[in-house]
């Protein structure tokens, strides 16, 4: 992946981050932060909000957006107008110089990865990821330039989805001030996926990473449709301290060639672990890096690509802070006692049997 570039409308991971959300959008800015934390993320590039503006300008769509800002207390009118904008966007085309730039970057990534996902990354960033879920679109399994340009334009149109427009109105955000950056990200072929906590959520132990893993995409773990394999890894020595192989992993989610996601039954893997110990240890190191970079415990989504060998097969998809009371955030039972009192307290407590 390029460290910097001469493109006008494209940014690479090292150029994305919290500092330029206005240019790359919220989602790409988070991905860029992961990249800056020096953990592996599936390679991507971003078509910046400047590209979006160029597109809108070129097709003379900005006046219609301005009109949206002037609609007040009339949702029906608002939605009619949004629909009109969407239709105009979907029939418009990319300016030649923009398309050419996108084509070059696209072919570079597709030659290595075979297919990509195109995801919207709007510049409206003062709301949590969760409340945005489903507002904008993602397109998976993109293989050709034509599909790519088409997906980019669809992403642009999704900025004017009914829900997105109503939401902006509700929070009084000017429609003209929100732009759409688009992420083109290589598509991981998930062998296994899951989550990792950099603190034990059950007892607040900050000295371990807790990993849960199952076959296929992470949805199986996140939705609770399987009992995942679980791992406890020492952050201090990197050893696998505890490991539980689950025999109850009946289904998995898979991405098909066309990019669609299907739920399939797992062949009976028996005692097989969905994540090897070696991979779990690599993942543990990633957890330490992310916690250090963000300065607090993290909840991390990760995926293992079936086409590569460890450690090159592990990718982080997302990392967000967790709010767990850690054992070190409150004082010890021994705090405030002198050493003799501590010894007496220890003897009194004894060991439960």
């Amino acid at each position, binding site marked *: 992946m390029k460290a910097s570039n001469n493109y006008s409308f494209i940014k690479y991971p090292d150029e994305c981050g919290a500092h330029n959300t206005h240019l790359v959008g919220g989602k790409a800015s988070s991905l860029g932060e992961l990249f800056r934390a020096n953990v592996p993320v599936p390679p991507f590039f971003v078509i910046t909000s400047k590209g979006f503006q160029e597109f809108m300008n070129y097709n003379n769509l900005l006046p219609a957006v301005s009109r949206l800002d002037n609609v007040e207390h009339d949702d029906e009118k608002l939605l009619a107008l949004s629909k009109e904008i969407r239709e105009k966007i979907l029939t418009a085309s990319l300016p030649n110089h923009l398309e050419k730039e996108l084509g070059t970057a696209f072919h570079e990534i597709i030659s290595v990865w075979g297919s990509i996902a195109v995801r919207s990354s709007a510049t409206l960033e003062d709301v949590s990821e969760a409340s945005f879920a489903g507002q904008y679109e993602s397109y998976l399994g993109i293989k050709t330039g034509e599909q790519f340009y088409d997906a980019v334009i669809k992403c642009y149109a999704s900025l004017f989805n009914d829900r997105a427009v109503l939401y902006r109105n509700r929070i009084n955000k000017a429609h003209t001030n929100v732009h759409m950056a688009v992420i083109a990200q290589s598509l991981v072929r998930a062998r296994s996926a899951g989550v990792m906590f950099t603190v*034990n959520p059950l*007892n*607040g*132990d*900050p*000295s*371990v990473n807790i990993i849960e893993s199952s076959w296929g995409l992470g949805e199986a773990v996140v939705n609770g449709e399987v009992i995942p394999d679980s791992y*406890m890894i*020492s*952050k*201090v*020595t990197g*050893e*696998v*301290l*505890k*490991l539980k192989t689950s025999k109850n992993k009946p289904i998995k989610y898979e991405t098909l060639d066309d990019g669609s996601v299907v739920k399939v039954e797992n062949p009976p893997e028996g005692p097989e672990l969905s994540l090897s110990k070696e991979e779990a240890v690599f993942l543990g190191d990633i957890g330490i890096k992310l916690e250090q970079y963000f300065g607090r415990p993290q909840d991390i989504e990760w995926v293992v690509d079936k086409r590569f060998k460890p450690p090159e097969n592990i990718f982080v998809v997302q990392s967000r802070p967790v709010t767990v009371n850690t*054992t*070190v*955030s*409150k*004082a*010890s*039972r*021994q*705090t*405030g006692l002198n*050493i*003799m009192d*501590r*010894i*007496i307290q*220890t*003897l*009194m*407590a*004894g*060991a*439960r*049997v």
Partner: protein
Amino acid sequence: MFRDFDMSERKFPHAYEVATPKGAEGWETMYPQFYTFSREPGSKRDWESSLFWFQDGMHHGEPLYPLDAIHPMAWQWALSSYNSRTFVVPPALGIAHRVLNCYLYITPIPVLDPKEVERRVGYFMKRAGYYYQNWNKIFDEWKVNAEKIVKEMEGLEFRDLPEFEDEEVVFKHMGLSKSSYTLYENYHKLVLLHFRLWQKHFEMLNLGYAAYLTFYMFCKEKFPGIPDQHIARMVAGIESILFRPDQECRRLAREALKLGISDIFLRRLGYERTVEELRKVENGMKWLAELEKSKYPWFYYATGPGFFHTEPRWIDNPDIPLGFITDYIEKLMRNEDIELPTEKLRREREELAQRYKSLLKDPQDIKTFEENLQLARTVFPYVEDHNFYVEHWGHTIWYKKIREIGSILVNHGIIRNVEDIFYLNWFELSQVLYDVCANWAVGVEPAGKYYWPAEVERRRKIIETCRQNRPPPALGKPPEVITEPFTIMLWGVTKDRIEQWLSGAVQKAVNKLSGLPASPGVAEGRARVVLSAEEIVKVKEGEILVAPITAPAWNPVFTKIKATVTDIGGIMSHTAIVCREYGLPAVVGTGFATQVIKDGMRLRVDGNEGVVEILEG
């Protein structure tokens, strides 16, 4: 001692419910009355049945020979007096002992009345506080005094009785039967010095464990997932004298190479013939001089926990250290490194402590961590080193002296072989020596000549029968909480352990055993089951050692094997300490490994998780 405990199925049989194996009837007569369980109903049996007893397989994993029972008697007395009456540990009295079917069971006695616990606190603060504050100074004195006791034991002479007393008895007006009185007196002196040495053994150990436990509990509170072995590794000393005998073997191997005489060793002629060959060359003589330097006291070293006369000791069985020396010579000739990586271990120890400390945030917590760690490290050399003085050096001399007495008893027809003396307990031995001395004085045969030989035969059969019939790992109902530091730290009696014992008691056909992960790493290999110290010579390169428990004198074996599995032992057990030092995976306290695993089975030992798998039988 029990608080409410309603899981009625979590229970072991009571002692009186355990049958006597056929052929072991009358085993009780080998031990003093106070040392066995009552079978008959009554208040003694009721009291015994109200307690939770567990088998001390760690130190006394074999049937107790009557005379070897003096060791647990000595430590019951010594350990308990420091807990209950010297340092006044607030919630714990001593550890009670009973024998069942020749196996030793023990139980910690707690102080349950909160007012009484409170009353004891003041005493403990003052007394224990003094020892902690002056720890290093007291330990320095301790070493001098322990050595004095050992040497005093060594100075005791045991001579057979002459026809007539030496004439100095007359001309120096000695006023006693010098030979018989001295024999009788020195036996009792020997017993008293043995008890005295055991009193030293526990002088600082209880407090050492308490300090370690305090650091341990702090770590477990702040880092609930921290493995016990990480805590031990942060504290453990790098150069315990328990490793010294092994270091001497390494030194002698290097000397042999330097002197250019290694080929003599490689022929593996055995000790006698090797010495004979060495005497023929000048450099061989030089090496033998080096050997003599190492022998005292470093070869006064037991190949087991030190509590059995059957454990070979290096000094009496020089083939054992010679074998290790030769192994090291071979390694050196293959250009392998035989040095312990002490610098690396020291660095790792600091890094580990630093990393855990860096996870703490509260300045108070950081201070507590530092203070607790420092105290744990201060007390730890004692915890590691004291065994050498008592179980190794001291007991080697004890056995040497007992055998001297044994050969006198053979002369008087009390026993047929020297080793038979171990079938008499120490109270009986006092009677026998009276019998021998008094009847020698009378001028007739001792009465015991017509009693003991047959009795020894009877006892021999009982011991053998009991060896084949191990009673349950525990008796009675487990308590809710154990507050006695030894029970927690040394025997590792915890919830998990008791569950294991219970599950193992039910089902023995298993292909997976769990225990405490005592030393990290994973290894696969063939099993070698070693039930007693004599069998260690069977262990071959690359095998996995499976034993009830290991002992410091097995250390050189640890350079051959891939991993270790034991039946018993906690995080402070010898196996745990040595395996960490040697970088070998170890799983301790599996409960049943030696019963389930057979020689040659392929095993997978996971020292990170504490799991042993039988891959193929």
